[in-house]
Structures are given as C-alpha cells and as structure tokens.
C-alpha cells in the first residue's frame, strides 16, 4: 500500500510537471518572440508581465466554448485530450537526474516515439470532427508533414541507441559519461533537431497554421479551453524536444560533479545541468521560429524526402560501419561500462571523421547539382536571347 502511494505520488508529480511548466513557457515564448521582433511583449500583469499566462488561463476558462453544428461531439471533445495526453505520456520515461525518472523502461526511446505518434491521431480526429473542409484539409497537410518528418526523426534516433546499445533513457544518458554523443554523431543530432522542430509544427515548418496567412489549421473549429489545450500541448512538445535532444546527444544530466550512483548533490546538480542544456535548445528553437521565413509545402516535402531521409540513411550506414570497424579493430569501448573521455576518444574521432566526410560529400553532391542546374538555365536563357527573331 505504501509503495502504491509512493508510486501514485511520483506519477502525479511527473505527469503534472509538463502541464505546470507550460504556464511559464507561454510567458517565456512571448517575451523572447517580442524581444526578437523588437517589441516589449507582455508587460502589464505582474512584474514584467509574468502573471500574464495565468490571466490567460483564467480567461480561457471563462470563454464560451462553441461547438459548431454538425460536429461529431465525442471525437471533437476527445481530440484535444488525446493531443495533450500524448505529450504528457512522453514525460513518463524522461529522466530528470541520475535517480529521478518516472519509469525507466527498457524500451524508453521507442515508448517515447510511439506515444508521440498518438498526437498525429489527435490531429486527424480534430480535423475530421469539426465538419469543416478547411479543418480537414489542414489536418491532412499536418498529418502528411508529421508522418514525413517522423522518418528522419526515428532514423537519427537510432544512432544514440546504436552507440549506447540500449533503448532505456537512463542507459543512453549514462553512456555519455566521457563523451557526448553530439561529438560522435553531429549529423544525427542536427537531423534530429530539425525534424523535431517540424514535428511540433512550428516555424519554419508551420504552414499547417500559418498564422499570418490563414485563419488556422486543423483546430479552426475549436474555441475556449479546448483550443488552449492544443496550444499548451504544442508548447510542452517544444520543451519536450529540448529535453530529448539534451538527453540523447549532449549528455542529459551529466556535468561536473555528477556521479551516476546518485546522491542528493548529484541529483540536484544533474537537474540543474539538464535545465541549462534544455534551455539552450529550447531557446534555439524559439530563435529559429521567430527568424526563419515559412517554407512552401513542396519545399517542405522535398526537403524531407530528398534531403533529410537520404542523409539520415547514409548517416546510419556510415556510423554503424565505422562502429563495427572500430569494434573489430579493437579500439571501441563499451560505453555502458567503461566510458572515460580518453577511452572513448579514438572511437569518437573515427565517427566524427565519418560524419565530416558525410557532410563534405553532401555539400559536394548538392553543390554539383545546383551548379549543373544553373548552367542549364543559363544555356536556356542564352538560347532564347540569341534565337533568330523569325
């Protein structure tokens, strides 16, 4: 009974954390966006407008909730719940510190990915139930985008799994004791970051909403709290991506003075390091959102299928090949047991070399293609200019 109550408490805390975090996140997001756009942002309610999101939440509760005629009531009401639930569930096995984790599942990473894919279903439900053709079209575009970008996301996720030899989140973090995975697989980290950004549906990949051009996307028929929930889910998803990148590629809670065994000091320090790393990636994400222009849908799809996916497949091939070579040659270390900086260095250099070669190769191929296209265009223009007038 006591153990059940402890579990209940842990689950309650871990499950509420993302939703509670959403409140300050809204403020941070608006403030950062305002600063980038040379505005002040919210500054009326409370010091620096810090109470603004709470005022927003109260406003949302007091707003009339309009359910348009012809909606499918059950699906319509279920969709925002599923959308938020998918994000909350992801937090079940995200570590906070060496000993602080909801549940350290053996299949941690796979669990996170599969729970995240429930969000796609929620969007489909939201778009369909509204009985509005724009919402439905919007949902189709979003779903096409989300499923497309899930491919490079999962393929690059495979690299940390490959290096750590485990899917458990704590195992992956522990394996980065001496060397962060970003040094072994910078390409995978970059692809993961880009496709995670696309998974949240934010700029430059926000053509599903395109706030400045369209009225809204799949959530057009939602109002009041239900709309707010979709929004909160998106905010938390961005933060979740930051945490995931911090864990998978830059060592999660590792830092100076943290030991894997734990202890109070390690846990506190680990949490602080994790917050710092997460904040950095979260900030980069906001920065991108507020500075990059929106892409067109054909550019979006081409970028994914003709750039990210081939590169992530090539990256997987190169990384696994080099890893196997270093294992056969005998200078690979088992990162789960012996992972000091010096021991991991030769392997890291080899993998880093492979990644640099991959980047150079990609640049060469795309540079060649672009040059060839330009030469062709110039030749065409030449031909038109010099064509006989009759």
């Amino acid at each position, binding site marked *: 009974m006591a153990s059940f109550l402890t579990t209940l408490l842990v689950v309650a805390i871990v499950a509420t954390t993302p939703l509670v975090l959403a409140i300050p996140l809204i403020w941070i997001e608006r403030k950062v966006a305002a600063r980038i756009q040379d505005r002040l942002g919210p500054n009326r309610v409370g010091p620096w407008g810090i109470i603004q999101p709470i005022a927003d939440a109260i406003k949302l509760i*007091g707003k009339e*909730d309009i359910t348009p005629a012809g909606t499918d009531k059950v699906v319509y009401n279920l969709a925002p*719940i599923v959308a938020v639930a998918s994000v909350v569930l992801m937090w079940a096995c995200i570590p906070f510190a060496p000993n602080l984790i909801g549940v350290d599942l053996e299949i941690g990473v796979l669990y996170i990915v599969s729970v995240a894919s429930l969000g796609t279903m929620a969007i489909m439900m939201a778009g369909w139930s509204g009985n509005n053709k724009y919402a439905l079209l919007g949902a189709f575009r979003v779903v096409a985008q989300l499923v497309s970008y899930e491919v490079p996301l999962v393929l690059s996720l495979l690299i940390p799994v490959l290096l750590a030899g485990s899917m458990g989140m704590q195992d992956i973090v522990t394996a980065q004791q001496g060397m962060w995975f970003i040094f072994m697989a910078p390409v995978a980290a970059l692809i993961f970051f880009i496709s995670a950004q696309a998974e949240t549906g934010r700029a430059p990949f926000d053509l599903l909403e395109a706030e400045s051009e369209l009225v809204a996307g799949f959530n057009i028929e939602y109002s009041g709290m239900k709309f707010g929930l979709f929004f909160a889910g998106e905010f938390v998803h961005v933060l979740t991506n930051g945490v995931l990148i911090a864990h998978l590629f830059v060592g999660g809670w590792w830092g100076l003075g943290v030991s894997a065994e734990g202890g109070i000091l390690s846990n506190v320090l680990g949490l602080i390091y994790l917050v710092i790393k997460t904040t950095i990636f979260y900030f980069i994400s906001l920065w991108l959102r507020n500075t990059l222009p929106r892409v067109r849908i054909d550019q979006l799809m081409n970028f994914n299928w003709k750039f990210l996916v081939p590169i992530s497949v090539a990256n997987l091939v190169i990384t696994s090949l080099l890893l196997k070579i270093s294992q056969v040659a005998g200078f690979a270390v088992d990162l789960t047991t012996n992972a000091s900086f010096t021991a991991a260095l030769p392997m890291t250099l080899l993998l880093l070399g492979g990644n640099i070669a991959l980047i150079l190769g990609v640049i060469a191929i795309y540079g060649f293609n672009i040059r060839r296209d330009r030469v062709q265009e110039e030749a065409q223009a030449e031909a038109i200019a010099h064509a006989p007038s009759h």
Partner: protein
Amino acid sequence: MNILNQWGPIGLFMVFAIVLPAAPILVAAIFAPRKPNDIKLQTYECGVETVGDTWVQFKVQYYIYAIVFLVFDVEMIFLLPWAIAFNELSFFAFGAGFLFIFLLTDALVYAWRKQALEWH
C-alpha cells in the same frame, strides 16, 4: 512481478494523462457562459454555409507519403533490436542488417525516380 513494476506506473500515467487535460475542459464547461445561436454555431467558412456533409476530394499524394512512412516505420521493428544487439553481432549479422537497409533504400530510390515524392 517484473512487468507490473515497470508498466503499472505507466498505466497510472495514462489515467493522469487523460484526467489532467479533461479537468480544465470540465472546469471551463462549468464556468463558461453558454449562449449558442444559429449564427454562432455555423461552421467557419468563407461566405455561404456548406450544404450537407463536408465533401472534398483529396490528393492521392497524401496516401503515397503515408505508404513510404509506413514502410520506414515498419523497418524500425527490425532496426531497433539490431541496433541494441549491435555490440554482440558478428560481422555476418552486421552485414545482414546492411542488406536490410540497402533493400529498403531501393524502395526509396524507386519512389524518387518515379517522382512519387514530388508534391503536385
């Protein structure tokens, strides 16, 4: 029970994950005003209200993207265990994984060459 220790909390998590977003909706339903009228309940459209069910023809392109995604998703079933067991694999087993990836890349190349990945 091993499996219950690990997944029991996840089950609790699911309950929380549903209750936490449902609660604000319920609270809003209690406090929010409710004064519906015909105009307010109209679907959000440009101009004239749609008659009957929503009726749009969709591009088959969405479906093709979904197929390619499905294939890569199913590929994960095999690549994840392969990646986990990587340290213990012989060179032969490693090559088997390579062949697997190669065969799937084939499908991608086919789709690319047939312009199935273009957005029309």
